C-alpha cells in the first residue's frame, strides 16, 4: 500500500456531453517510470492533468500520496507542490528571469529563504545544463533551453512525482535530444515519472511500464519489453506499426 503513490480507481471524466476518460484504473508505485502513449485526443493529457487536479474528474477516486483529490480538498496546493509538471508549451513566466522562474515557487510557496532557493535553483539548472543562462529572460532562450528550464523549475519544488505532458512535441528534432537527455538523467536519479510522449526511443530506454490509451480508455498496460515485443491488442499493434 505504502509504495503506491498514485491510485486511480474507476475514474470517469466528461467535457460537457463528451466522455474523455472512461473507467480508468491505474496504480503507480514509487520510483516507477511510466510512459503513456496513444493517438491524439485519446485523453492522455487529460489523465495526467487530473493527477494534480488541473482538471476535475466527475466519478471515481484519485489518491495521490495518501490524499484523495475531491472538490473539498482544502489544501490542493500542498498536493500540487508535491507533484511537478512540465508542459508542452513550456509555460515559463515571461516577466521573470530564468533564475526567478525557478526560485519563485520555493520562496513564496515553501517559504524558503531567498539565498537557499537560489542555490537550489542553480544546482538544478546546472543539472539540466543551463546555469549559464540564469539571468536571461525566457524569451531570449531557445525552445529546448526553455523546456529544460521548465524541468528545473518543477524540480526546485522537490516534488515526489513528475508529470510530463508531451514535453518534446513543440520542439525541433535537435532540441528534442537535449530535453530527453535531461529527462533520462532525472529518471536515473530515481524520480517517479509519468510521461506522455510519442518518443518511443525514450520509452524503451527508461520506462518500466508503457500504457497505451485510445478513446479515453487504457487499452493496454505492460512491461516495456513486453509492450514492444508482443503487444496483445490489435489497436496497439496498429499504433506501433505506424509509429515505429
Amino acid at each position: 500500500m505504502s509504495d503506491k503513490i498514485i491510485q486511480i480507481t474507476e475514474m470517469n471524466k466528461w467535457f460537457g456531453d463528451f466522455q474523455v476518460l472512461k473507467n480508468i484504473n491505474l496504480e503507480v508505485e514509487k520510483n516507477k517510470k511510466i510512459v503513456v502513449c496513444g493517438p491524439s485526443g485519446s485523453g492522455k493529457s487529460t489523465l495526467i492533468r487530473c493527477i494534480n487536479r488541473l482538471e476535475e474528474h466527475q466519478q471515481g477516486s484519485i489518491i495521490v500520496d495518501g490524499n484523495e483529490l475531491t472538490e473539498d480538498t482544502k489544501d490542493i496546493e500542498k498536493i500540487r507542490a508535491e507533484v511537478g509538471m512540465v508542459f508542452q508549451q513550456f509555460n515559463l513566466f515571461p516577466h521573470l528571469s530564468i533564475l526567478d522562474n525557478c526560485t519563485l515557487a520555493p520562496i513564496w510557496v515553501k517559504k524558503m529563504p531567498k539565498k537557499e532557493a537560489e542555490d537550489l535553483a542553480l544546482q538544478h539548472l546546472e543539472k539540466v545544463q543551463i546555469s549559464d543562462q540564469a539571468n536571461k529572460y525566457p524569451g531570449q532562450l531557445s525552445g529546448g533551453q526553455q523546456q529544460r528550464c521548465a524541468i528545473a523549475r518543477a524540480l526546485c519544488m522537490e516534488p515526489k512525482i513528475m508529470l510530463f505532458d508531451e514535453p518534446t512535441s513543440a520542439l525541433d528534432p535537435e532540441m528534442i535530444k537535449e530535453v530527453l537527455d535531461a529527462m533520462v538523467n532525472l529518471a536515473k536519479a530515481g524520480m517517479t515519472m509519468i510521461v506522455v510522449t510519442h518518443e518511443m526511443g525514450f520509452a524503451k530506454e527508461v520506462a518500466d511500464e508503457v500504457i497505451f490509451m485510445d478513446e479515453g480508455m487504457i487499452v493496454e498496460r505492460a512491461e516495456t519489453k513486453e509492450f514492444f515485443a508482443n503487444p496483445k491488442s490489435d489497436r496497439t499493434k496498429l499504433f506501433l506499426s505506424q509509429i515505429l
Partner: protein
Amino acid sequence: MNKLNFLQPDKNNFYTYLYTGVILVALSIFIVFLNSFFNKDIVSFLPGPISFFLPLILGFTGLHLIRIDYSGLRFLDSINKNINTNNFNAFLSLLIVFVVIKSLPPLLSWFIIDANITGDSKDVCTGSGACWTYIKIWFNRFMYGMYPNPEQWRINLSFIALAFLGCVGFFATEKFKKYLTLYYVVVYPIIAFFFIFFFISGGPIFFDFSYGIIAAVISIILGFFIPSKFKMYYFIIVPITLYILLKYVFFYEELIELGKLEALEWVETGAWGGLSLTFIVSFFCLIFCFPIGLFLSLGRRSDFPIIKYISIGMIEFWRGVPLITVLFMSSVMFPMFLPEDMFIDKLVRVIIAISLFEAAYVAEVIRGGLQALPRGQYDAAKSLGMGYWKMHILVILPQALKLVIPGIANTFLALVKDTPLIFVVGLLEIVGMLNLAKTNPEWLGFAMEGYVFASVLFFIICYAMSKYSYNLEQKYKTER
C-alpha cells in the same frame, strides 16, 4: 551631355534638376511667405486663378524635379523618402507647409504681438490680440479657487511636501527598494490624505493631525531603543497612548478654546478650487479607482456566483450611467439616505463617485489584459502549488497589468479631463473658475484667453502622464 528630360529626372544632369527644383520650391514658399506675413502679392500681375495657384504649381514642379532615387545626397534622399515619394504625397506635403505658413501670422499676432500682459485692469487690453492681463489678475483664483489668500501657503506647502515625498523612489537605496511598492501603494496615499484632510482643510482637527505627527515622531525615535521582539506591540500601543496623552492631558481642549493655542483657520471644501482642486480630485480618484477596478476585474472572473454577479452588476451599472448624473446623485440624492445627523463632505462624496465610475472602466481594461494571458500561465502557476492570490499577485497580474498600461493611461487621462464636471455639485476647479470669471461684469469678453490657458495646462498635465506611461511600458518590456 545628356538630353534634359523634365518629365523623368534622372542622375544624368543631376545638378541641373536639383538646382531648378530647389529654386522652384523656394520661390513658391517665398511667395506664400510674403503673402502671409507682409500681405504682399508679388504675382498679382497674373490673372486671378493662376496667381492663386501659382505657388502650388511651382512647388509641385520643383518637388517633381528633385525626386531622384539614390542621389547620394543624404538630405535629399531623406526628403524624397519621407515627404516626396510620389506626386500625391508631394502635393499633400506642399499643402501642409502652405497651411502652416498661412496660419502662423494670425496666431502669432493673437498670442504675442498684439497681446497685452502689462497693467492690472481691463482698460489696457485695447489691441486685437489676447488679453493675458486677465489671466495675470485672475491667476490666483485659477490656481486656488476661493481659498483665502493669506492661507494659500498651506496648499503650496502640502503640494511641495507631497511632490518631495513622491520623489523618494528616485533616492531610495538598494536596501529599501523592495519596500517602495508598499510605500507608494499604501503609505503615500495615507500621508497625502492626512496632508490634504488636516492641513489644507485646517480647523480644530488640525490639532489632531499635529498630535498624530508628534506621537509618531516620538515613538519612532524611541523605537530604536526597543528590542525587535517587542516592536510589533510597541508600535501599536505607544503611538496611541502618546496621542491620547497629548490630546486630553497635555493640551487641554480648553486651551484651544481660550485662544492660547491657535489652530489653522478652517477652510471648507466648498471654497477649495482652481488647479489645486483639479490635482486633489484627480490624485485621489486615480489612487482609489485602480484597486477598486482591479478587484472588480478579478471578481468578474471569479468562480463564486455571488462575487461574480455583484462585480458584473457594479461594472455595468457604473458604465451605464453618465458621469454628470452620478455626480448630481452623489450631491442631491445620497444625503437623503443618510441619517439626519450624519454628514459626509461634498468633496469626499465627489471623489467616491468619480472613483467608482472610473473603476468600472479600469476593471474592463484590466480584464482585457487578464484574458490576453494564455491558459498555460495559470496551469503552470497552479502546478507549482500556488493558491489563487499567490498565482495572481506573482504571475498573472504582473503580466496582465504590463499589457494594459496603455489602456489604463487612457482611462486615467479621461479621468483627469472629466474632473471639470464637478461643477454640477458646486465645486469649481480650474474650468469652473474660468466659467465664473467669464461672467464677472468687470471682465466680460475674455472667455477665449481663459479656455486657451486651461487647455494649455490640461495639455501639460496629460502629456506628462502619457509620457510617463510610455516610460513605464518601456521599463517593463521583456521579450516574450
